[in-house]
């Protein structure tokens, strides 16, 4: 397995170049690029600018692990407004295009957003309708779409079997799950999600969660690896069982208040221990 960290962890005042240098120094193999979340990678970023971005990543001795985005929280595929939905589709298409330019084969999306206003059944159907043609586009580009399990945050596809059925309904080998082992909270067990989804896992986000600290969805419950309640030996065992040998991508939602560069080093070392199984 290889380890990466998101470029949204790089402080804005550091800038991309310094951030990439730190990521490399900390021992990561790659970097996850967040479309729309960082100044150097926006929907308006041109193809040539994306190529320049790749050159910087290459020069730092890293590779792009995957393309992610948080833009679908504001513009979900499940929106009722057709214009918002069209924008959501365009965001996915741009992720696919940039993934090809950046030399990676995986993108992340938050598939749908259940709200008081837009009910579950609508969200389910609308996401299927959107993902089927997007899956075909992704397949043609040699890219896999990983729908992230955001569980309590998007109130959608909350159990592993529900997610499994959703992927069956999408019925595209190019659409799988970007598994976040920290998002499951007290709705289940990450190791069981790994066992159920196995080869459908496109990438894995790693973070820890302190279940006893509060309700699901509250970001304050997230914490660095090994500080929370995830059963890491069980997670490591499940990864071995299903033969997962891809990217582990650190998504540290809780930031160090001081010495923020240290979090990169600490996280990389914790991931090394996870990968080696020395837990």
């Amino acid at each position, binding site marked *: 397995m290889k380890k990466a960290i998101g470029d949204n962890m790089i402080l804005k005042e550091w800038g991309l170049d310094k951030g990439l240098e730190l990521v490399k120094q900390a021992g990561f193999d790659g970097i996850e690029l967040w479309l729309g979340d960082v100044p150097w990678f926006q929907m308006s970023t041109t193809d040539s600018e994306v190529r320049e971005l790749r050159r910087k990543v290459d020069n730092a001795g890293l590779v792009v692990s995957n393309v992610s985005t948080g833009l679908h929280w504001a513009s979900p595929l499940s929106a*009722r*407004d*057709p214009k918002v939905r069209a924008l959501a589709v365009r965001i996915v298409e741009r992720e696919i295009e940039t993934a090809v330019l950046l030399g990676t084969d995986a993108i992340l999306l938050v598939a749908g957003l259940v709200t*008081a*206003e837009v*009910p579950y059944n*609508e969200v389910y*159907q*609308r996401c299927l*309708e959107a993902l089927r043609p997007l899956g075909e586009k992704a397949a043609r580009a040699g890219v896999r779409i990983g729908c992230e399990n955001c569980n309590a945050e998007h109130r959608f596809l909350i159990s592993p079997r529900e997610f499994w059925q959703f992927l069956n309904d999408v019925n595209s080998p190019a659409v799988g799950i970007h598994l976040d082992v920290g998002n499951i909270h007290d709705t289940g067990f990450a190791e069981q999600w790994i066992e159920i989804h196995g080869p459908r896992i496109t990438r894995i986000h790693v973070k820890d969660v302190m279940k006893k600290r509060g309700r699901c969805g509250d970001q304050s419950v997230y914490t660095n690896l090994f500080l929370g309640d995830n059963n890491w030996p069980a997670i490591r065992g499940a990864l071995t069982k299903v033969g997962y040998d891809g990217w582990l991508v650190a998504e540290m939602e809780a930031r160090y208040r001081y010495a923020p560069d240290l979090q990169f080093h600490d996280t990389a070392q914790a991931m090394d221990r996870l990968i080696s199984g020395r837990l």
Partner: protein
Amino acid sequence: MGITRRRFLGYAAVAATAGLRGRPLDLWRLGRSVGTSRSCVLLDLKAHGCLSDSVSGYESVLTSAGVRWMRAEARSVSPARGAVLIVPAALEIPPAAVQAIVSYLQAGATVILESGAGFAAGREFRVHRVELRDYLRVRVEAPVQLWSAHTSSQGIPYVDYSWPHSAKVRDFSRVVPLGPQAGDVIAWVDGLPVALKRHGGRGTLVFLGSPLGPALWAGDAEARRWLFDCLGEAGGCAEPAIS
């Protein structure tokens, strides 16, 4: 009002070929009769519609219910073919669609015309409103966002239908309310009239200012029952095979 001369001439031709002598409004002065065919036609406006999920909703329900139905484009619709014409999520209503609606009504059919303009803004909505007013005599007001003033403590702004039976159907965030006009208001949401039933030609026009199709698509049982009863009232379609 955003209608080009070309489109105006198209509508004028519709009125003439529909035997209305350039006065489409006369349509509403005629009486009603029962349809003779037993099929339902789903008019797909394609680029002129705006909610593909609405079309999918009607398709899935008509299919699963065993109703004899067909999907058609406006230019290929034959009035003799059906007792019911459903026009899902209409935004721009092109002359051929107006012609299809008028000819169905003249033939004594029921037309369910669903507005898809809830999310339309500016010129898009103005054109929609003018087309409804001038060629189908349906008066609508600007879209209303139901959820902006709505708090969770006030509950869900369900659309309450009173015809053909009382039914409570999920809202679609925005509605196109009715203006003052002839006909029976058959649904309300948050105090706004949002659906109308009116005789036209020898048929019946049912106008929906809150789209039903997405609720059908999402499997809303009451929405399905409402549609079945509406089809039953039209006398044209088979009884549903499912509840």
